[in-house]
Structure formats: structure tokens, C-alpha cells
């Protein structure tokens, strides 16, 4: 099979595509043709790196290989990143073996070593690949950026082996979160506007922005380990100004003042908490066992609060309508 060529330059067009990917545009269609690529001027001793056929994965790798001659073996992961594809098994033992054979890799290089991204390990049985193809697998660092340092020493430091989730990594997820929840949020905001009124609509939008924008940004700073309680706390914090405003501007002693205060306190936190719980899948920490436990513990609380909050909204809306006629 032919060897394709690629370089380390990230072009303006690449950057535009990266930007569109961040916003969730045509998800799953940002693919690179699977196969063997030459970067720079590789020879028979040059290292072989393996990656996914997702645009961001491939570009991160080739950018990191600036000034390094090597081969890149791109697996067909259906346009999904290494980590996620490994979890699904598409960045996996079978596809790797198939790709090694289809590209005739054994005839291209004289050595028997493949460098895989560490985060591809959940999908690959290294001993089996060696047994069936003769190629040994070395897991490189988690981040492609660390590859040059790794290649120099041939060893990944403990720091290179740890997955982290720094601010920038969390920030880049916000657009996709926003796009994903925009439609239901707009619909609910309109309902809230037609119901209790514009302040309720604003509260709802605040709670959604809290869960989709503030939550990812503030993740490590919010107290408690559980995502749901982090989200609940953030939601309560966001609902307080609304509650205080109701108490300050409503008629003192009027039950409607208290009902609308309660509405904000009860309806906003579960929205943020639910979005927070949803964010678990986008982070590299929570185990399935733990997330399941969270679901069983907090979904009843979240649903209960939301139901009571909605009840307040319905009652207030009904009274408003009755007063109008």
C-alpha cells in the first residue's frame, strides 16, 4: 500500500476546522484517511507512531513531531479521538493488527516497535498484538506535546503519564456543551417567560449557563467530590440573588412573594446539578461505578426539587392568569 505524506504545519484551514470541531459542527465527519503516513523524511529505522483518524488527534501528533522524521499509522476510529475510540474498542487490537498488515508496515521499517498514545491503552491488548504481528508496543506519553522529550530519553516521566484536566481543556469543551443544550434551554426559557415571567426565564438561562459554562470552568474549585453536589451548590449560589430580589421587591407577607422565592431556590439548582452530572462523561476522572452511584443518589433529589419548583411556577402562573381575567 502507498505511503501518504504529511507535514507538521498546522495551516490556517486546519485551524478553522479545529474551531468548527470545538463548536460541534458536523460531529464525526472530521476524519483523516486511515493508513501509513510519512512525516519529514523517514527511513527504515524511524519511529512509528499510531493514532486515530480524528482530525484533532492526527494534527496534535504531527504538530508535535515537528523536526522529527517518522511514520504515523492512522487507525480507522470513525473520526473519534484516541481516548474515546479506545473505550469503544475501535482504537483497538483488531484494527491495529489489520492496519499493520494492510499497510505492509513490516516491510517499511526494519525494527519492531510501535509507539502508541497512552490513552489508547484501554482498547489495545499489547501482548496479543506482539504475538500476532511481531510488533512490540510502547505506550508513549498521554499528551502528544511530550513526545519530543519522550523520544530523547525513551521514557515517560510520571508527569507525562498522568491525565490532567487543566483550565484550557475544560474551557474548550464549553462551546459543545452550549450547543448541545441550547435548544431545550431556549424552549424552557420561552415557557418560563410565558408562565411566571421574564425573571423566571432569566433564572432558567442563568442555571443553564451555570451548568454549561461556569461548571466546567470552576470544576476543581467547587467543593465535594460528587459532580451532582458540586452542581447543586453552584445552582444554589446562582439562585440566591433571584431569591433575595423576590424577597426585597415582593409584597411582605404576601404568599406569592414566598412562592416565587421558593420557585427560584427549588428550580434553578437541579438544572445546574443535572448539567453538572452530565458533564461527568466529558471529564477524565469518574469511574462508571461512581457515576452510577451518583445517579441513584442524586437523581431523586434533583427530580424532586425540579418538580416542586415547577409546581410553584405552575401555581404562580395560574394565579397570574386568574388575575388577568
Amino acid at each position, binding site marked *: 500500500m502507498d505511503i501518504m505524506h504529511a507535514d507538521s504545519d498546522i495551516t490556517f484551514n486546519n485551524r478553522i476546522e479545529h474551531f468548527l470541531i470545538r463548536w460541534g459542527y458536523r460531529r464525526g465527519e472530521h476524519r483523516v484517511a486511515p493508513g501509513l503516513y510519512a512525516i519529514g523524511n523517514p527511513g527504515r529505522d524511524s519511529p512509528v507512531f499510531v493514532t486515530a483518524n480524528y*482530525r484533532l488527534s492526527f494534527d496534535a501528533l504531527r504538530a508535535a513531531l515537528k523536526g522529527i522524521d517518522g511514520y504515523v499509522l492512522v487507525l480507522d476510529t470513525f473520526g473519534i*479521538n484516541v*481516548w474515546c475510540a479506545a473505550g469503544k474498542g475501535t482504537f483497538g487490537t483488531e484494527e491495529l493488527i489489520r492496519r499493520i498488515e494492510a499497510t505492509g508496515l513490516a516491510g517499511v521499517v526494519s525494527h519492531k516497535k510501535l509507539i502508541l498514545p497512552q*490513552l489508547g*491503552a484501554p482498547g489495545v491488548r499489547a501482548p496479543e498484538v506482539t504475538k500476532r504481528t511481531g510488533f512490540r508496543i510502547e505506550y508513549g506519553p498521554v499528551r502528544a506535546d511530550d513526545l519530543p522529550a519522550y523520544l530523547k530519553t525513551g521514557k515517560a516521566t510520571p508527569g507525562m503519564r498522568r491525565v490532567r484536566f*487543566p483550565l484550557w481543556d475544560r474551557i474548550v469543551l464549553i462551546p459543545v456543551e452550549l450547543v448541545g443544550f441550547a435548544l431545550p434551554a431556549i424552549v424552557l426559557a420561552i415557557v418560563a417567560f410565558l408562565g411566571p415571567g421574564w425573571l423566571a426565564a432569566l433564572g432558567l438561562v442563568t442555571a443553564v449557563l451555570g451548568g454549561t459554562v461556569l461548571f466546567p470552568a470552576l470544576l476543581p474549585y467547587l467543593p465535594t467530590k460528587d459532580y451532582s453536589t458540586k452542581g447543586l451548590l453552584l445552582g444554589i449560589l446562582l439562585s440566591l440573588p433571584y431569591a433575595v430580589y423576590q424577597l426585597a421587591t415582593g409584597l411582605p407577607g404576601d404568599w406569592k412573594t414566598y412562592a416565587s422565592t421558593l420557585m427560584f431556590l427549588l428550580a434553578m439548582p437541579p438544572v445546574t446539578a443535572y448539567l453538572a452530572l452530565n458533564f*461527568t462523561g466529558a471529564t477524565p476522572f469518574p469511574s462508571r*461505578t461512581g457515576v452510577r452511584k451518583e445517579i441513584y443518589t442524586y437523581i431523586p433529589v434533583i427530580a424532586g426539587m425540579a418538580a416542586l419548583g415547577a409546581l410553584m411556577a405552575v401555581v404562580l402562573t395560574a394565579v397570574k392568569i386568574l388575575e388577568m381575567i
Partner: protein
Amino acid sequence: MMFNSYRQNTLELYPDRCIGCGMCANVCPHAVFTIGDRQPANLLASRRVASLANKEACMECGACQMNCPVAAIRVQSGVGCAAAMIKAALTGGPEVCGEGGCCGSGEGGNTSCCGPAK
């Protein structure tokens, strides 16, 4: 500590089988394993052996189990994604993380898996 659902997980290590190769420590993204001398030393087993230094940090990705050459590790791997689990619970379908679409976060789109509401 309250509000911590992540104290327990399904990770299990069988030191008797371990040959101390260090692969698990290499692949684990959360430094769950350390490799040290076997205590007490056992002439019939390897000198080096893996131990669980930080079991609670395990995210059940399955990398260690997949790559251990002697099947000394067991973990029920899966993705810790509430969206997928809630959807699976509601529809009775399998737990998949977004059809054809993982959002792909930083590190070259390598660290995060399911995005929101797919």
C-alpha cells in the same frame, strides 16, 4: 467524607500472579499502581510486584487489565458518563457514549469522551 460516590470501584489486583513487569503502571492515567519489591520475598514469584497505591483514583478505563500480560488485574471497565447511563436506563438500550460523536477535548482531542446530549 460525605458527597463522595467514588470511594469504591471494581478494580482488583492479584499480586500472586503478578510478574512485576510494570505495564499497568505505564498505562494507568491516574497513577493507581506502584511497582515495588515483593514483601515478604518469595523465591517462587517475581522480585518486583505491583500494588494499588491509589485505588480510589481508578476511573475503570480498563487499560491495565487489557495490557497485563498475565491477567493479574480485573476491572469492570466502562465509561463514567452519566448521559449515557441515564439514556440506557430510560431506553433499555446499551450504554454507549454518544452515537458516532465524542466531543473530543484538549490534548489533541484525546482526553474526554462523551460530550453533552447526543
